[in-house]
C-alpha cells in the first residue's frame, strides 16, 4: 500500500443505526485510513458514486435495521457495472431478520459478492486488521 487508502462508509437503505459505523470510522481514522462517511440511509448508487469520486479502495456497508438482505441484493453487480470490479466490499451489523444463524447468514452475503460479512460481535480492531489484509491482497494481485 503506497497511499493512504480511501474508505467509503455508511448505513444502507432505511437504516438509521449509526453508532456501529461511527465506531468503525473512528478506528479507521486512528489507523491512518482516510474515511469518507456518508452517514445514514445511503442507497447503493450513492455508495458507488461516492467510491468513484473518492477513488476508494473499499466500501463499508452497515445494516442493523433488519432489512440487510432486501437492501444488499445486487450491490456487487452494480459495482462491476460502474467499473469497480475489484473494490473491497464489507457488510456488517445485525444482518438477519428472523432466526437465521450466522452460519447461514455469512455465506448468503458472501454469495452476494461481499468480500466479507461481519456479525455484531465484531470489534473495530478486527475489522481494521481484516481490511489491511484484504487491501494488501488486492494491491498484490
Amino acid at each position, binding site marked *: 500500500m503506497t497511499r493512504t487508502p480511501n474508505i467509503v462508509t455508511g448505513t444502507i437503505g432505511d437504516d438509521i443505526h449509526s453508532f456501529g459505523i*461511527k465506531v468503525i470510522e473512528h478506528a479507521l481514522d486512528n489507523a491512518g485510513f482516510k474515511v469518507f462517511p456518508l*452517514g*445514514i*440511509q445511503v442507497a447503493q448508487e450513492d455508495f458507488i458514486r461516492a467510491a468513484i469520486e473518492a477513488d476508494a479502495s473499499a466500501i463499508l456497508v452497515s445494516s442493523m*435495521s433488519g432489512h440487510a438482505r432486501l437492501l444488499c441484493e445486487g450491490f456487487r453487480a452494480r459495482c462491476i457495472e460502474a467499473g469497480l470490479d475489484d473494490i473491497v466490499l464489507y457488510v456488517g451489523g445485525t444482518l*438477519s*431478520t428472523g432466526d437465521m444463524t450466522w452460519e447461514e447468514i455469512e455465506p448468503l452475503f458472501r454469495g452476494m459478492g461481499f468480500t466479507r460479512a461481519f456479525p455484531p460481535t465484531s*470489534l473495530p480492531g478486527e475489522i481494521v486488521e481484516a481490511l489491511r489484509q484484504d487491501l494488501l491482497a488486492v494491491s498484490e494481485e
Partner: protein
Amino acid sequence: MGIENIKIDDDRFMQMRKAVLGSYKTGAEVDIEDGIAYQKALPTHKVLAHELKNAREGNYTLGHNLTGQSTAQSQFEFLECLQNDGGAGLLQCLYDSYTRTGRFEHLENVIAQCEREGKNLLNGFPLVNYGVAGNRKLVEALDRPVGALGPAVDSRLASEIALASGYTQLVDNTYIVFETYTKSATLEEIMGNFQYSLRLAGYYTERGAPIAVTVATGAAGDNAPGVAPPSLGTAGRVLGALAAAAQGVRHMIAVNWSFGNIAQDVASSFVTQKLIGEYLERFGHEGIELYMENGCLGGPYPYDWDQAFAEVMYAGIVSALSNSQMCQVKTFDEATGIPTMQNQARSLKGARMMYRIMRTPDLDFRNAPDTRREMEMEEREARAIIEKVLELGDGDPLKGALKAYEFGIMDNPVANNPRVKSAVMGVKDATGAVRYLDTGNLPFDEEIKAFHRDRIRQREGRMNRPASYDTIVADMRAIASGDWLAA
C-alpha cells in the same frame, strides 16, 4: 406560513386531511365521524386513557413493548401472546421502515410475498396497507388498548388509519425523528407533520374519544444512551407537552428512557412531571392528565440472556420507584436479533413482577439525598434550555425549538442529521450517571458546568486517564459483555 404553537383550525385541518387521505388508497377508508363513533363504542378496557387512570389509582403499571410483524395475521398472533402470556397493558404496533417512508405500493408486493411464504421480511407492521378494515379486525380480536408508533418524518396517514381503526394511543416523535431518523428532513417539516397527528388526536378527544398521546422527547436515552444527560430529553418533553396541549390533547404520557444510575433515572421522572405540569399551567392549559412512563436502558445489550434479563428489568425498577403508570420493556434477546414473541412476553412478565416487587406506594425515593441532588441539577439545566427556547421563539415553544437547534440550544451528541449541531457530548461518571463532557452551546451557568466537570473528574481519577469518545465506546462494550462501566 411558518409553524406556530396554536391549534390548527378545523377548516384548514379538513383540507390538509383530504390531501393526506388521498395519498394512498386505504386513506379512502377513513371517515372521521365513523372513527369517533367506533372509538366511543369501544369497551373501556381497550381505551388507554381509561386504563392509565386505573393504573394510577390502583398503583400498577401498564407494561408494553414495541411489536411489528409483516402481516396482520402474525401481528395478531404476536400481540395476543404479549397480551395473554406477557400481561401487556398496551399493545403497541410499530410500523415498518417502508411505511415510515410512504412506500405503500412497494409494500403491497412484500406483504403478498410474506403472506404467501409465511415470511417476515419487514421490520414492522405495514399498518397503512391493511387499511381501516384490516386494523379494526386486529383491534376487535384483541383485549387491550392498541397503540401505534413508528418514528417517521411523515406518519400522518398512519395516524389517520390507526385512530379510525380504534387505536387509542399515538406517539409524537418530532425531535427524535429530526435528530436520529433522517439526515435530510427539516425540523419544520417533521414538526408540521406531527402537529397534524396531535391535532387529529385532539379532534377525537374533543368529541369524546380520548386518545392518549406520548409527547415528544428530546435526545433520549435510547437514541443517545450514555451520551446525552437527561436534561436535554426533559426539555424536549416539556416542549412536546406544550405542542400536544395546543392541539387539544388531554391525556398525555411522558416517556423517559433510562441511563443506568438509579438516582438520576428516578430524578428525571420527577423533574419531567414537575416541569411539564408547571409549563402547562403557565401556558394556561387546564384539566390535562399527565402520566409517566419509563423505558429500558438504551444502547447495546448483553448477548447473554440472563444478564440481559436483569438489564431489561431495570425498567420495572425505575418505573416503580418513579410511581409511573407505564413501563416500556425491551427483551432479553435484544442483542440477538428481532425478538420472538415468547421472549417478549417473558420479558414483560418479568418486568411487571419487578415493578410489583419494587413498588412501595409510600417509598419516598425522591427524597433520598442523591435523588434530590439529581433533581435539582436536572431541573436547573432543563429550565435553562426551555427558557432560552421560549426566548428564541418569542414565547412560542415551537418557533423557539426551530431556532434552538441552529444555535445548539437543543442538541444531540450523536445525531444523524447534519442540521443538528452535535456540539454537546456526554459520558458516564463513576456512578454511571451521564454528565456533560462538553456542554456545547447549552445555556448553562458556571455552576452547572462545574458540577458536570467535577463528576467526570472523579471518573477520570478512577480510570487514570481522561474521559473521551473511547470511554463511551468502552462503556457500551462493557455493558454488552455483562459489565456495567468500563474500568
